[in-house]
């Protein structure tokens, strides 16, 4: 597979390490009264879609960017690649 890195251009997927669903960006609030349930779901429960999947890849053998790659799990077609930091900021994560 080839991942079109937003900063570096197309790179072989072998340079990357895969983590999983990009929902892992949305770490729950540990102060929430349902924190136990929220963290359980956050860490374990997956949509596991057959189709478009937003997922986290780490450019370990490259610039160490975490990327959010939107990839089809049926065809492996990649339709979008973003810096995970940008995605996280856009989703309201900050400090």
């Amino acid at each position: 597979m080839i991942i079109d890195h937003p900063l570096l251009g197309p790179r072989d997927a072998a340079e990357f390490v895969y983590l999983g669903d990009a929902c892992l960006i949305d770490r729950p609030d540990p102060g929430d009264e349902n924190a136990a349930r929220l963290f359980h779901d956050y860490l374990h429960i997956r949509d596991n879609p057959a189709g478009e999947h937003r997922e986290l890849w780490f450019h370990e053998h490259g610039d160490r960017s975490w990327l959010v790659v939107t990839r089809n799990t049926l065809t492996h077609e990649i339709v979008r690649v973003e810096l995970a930091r940008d995605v996280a900021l856009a989703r309201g994560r900050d400090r």
Partner: protein
Amino acid sequence: MRYSVLQILKEGLTGNRGWKPVWREPDPKQHYDIVIVGGGGHGMATAYYLASVHGLTDIAVLEKGWIGCGNVGRNTTIIRSNYLLPGNEPFYELSMKLWEGLEQDINYNAMVSQRGLINLFHTDPQRDAAVRRGNAMLLAGAGAVLLDREALRRKCPFLDFDNERFPIKGGLWQPRGGTVRHDAVVWGYARGADRRGVDVIQNCEVTGFDIRNGVCRGVETTRGAIGANKVAVCVAGSSGQVMGLAGLRLPIESHVLQACVTEGLKPAIPGVITFGAGHFYVSQSDKGGLVFGGDIDGYNTYAQRGNLPTVEDVCEGGMALMPMIGRARVLRMWGGVVDMSMDGSPFIDRTPVEGLFFSGGWCYGGFKAVPAGGYCLAHLMATGAPHRVAEAMRLDRFMTGAVIDEKGMGAQANLH
């Protein structure tokens, strides 16, 4: 029709014209006591044990394609009960015992071949872990032998003992481990279940569940609605998709596991050998092909195919371990979609929907578990209580913290 050498002689002398279908091809009835979704190893074994152990026969097994054409027909055929944790080991040992009596039980030769399985270790910490595991196996009655380097050299002189990057220190040997002719397992169970009255229904895809007030009352299929008092889903690889039809989300990701087979060769490798310093394991089929594989590709996918780097990684491990296989040619490589669970261990459990049962999350190890998986799911469905050896395989274990994490990799599906 009972299978025996006499039957073969009789048929052989009459042109093999008298053989009967191994299973019937009935049309689905409108209602069954039990509907099992998935005509693979686990589904078929569940039906067989429901019928043979619990006397329940008003059962349909629904398969969207042809039976045995999912992961049970796509694995590397290894059986073993060499697990570490008490949540796993007794279960896999039950499976091993069932394998050992399978052929006589179902009157079908699945070629259960206990030629032994060796897990190699290359460092002192790996050795310590192997000893801990071996003793856990002995406690469970599974049998285990610790081989030192010299013993290994005698058993497997073709391993690279001279130029190794990671010297082999020894191996943990389970003499009862081995391989089974995988396709025959599902055919044998299908035959056994069919003969007891179970309807095996092919080309019948489940498209929905009939759930009313939190109770599952049947399934929608491409061949019409089928009512049921109890429904079990045994579709590992597609668990997320099928259980999604029932509105359930799972601690499972779908990943592709690739495997390879070489051209046929005269006997070269005894039993099963697993490399401890890379991703590679190998056995040799009765036809002579070296059957080998390694790790999953590592990304979520439903495509039954992987990519080159994984195959290269596997072959690198193979060449590092036994460079005599270099000139054996890979004939075919294929990929199967597996349910990777969040702790690497499976589920055999009821679900929040009453009457709906689930078996899945088998990761890359579902084949060896087929007999016990079917046996324990049948037990749960027939008696209402989990079988003793499968008590830990619950869906809520991540909530309680009672995880069964053999590898100690944590809640990341692709690391197990």
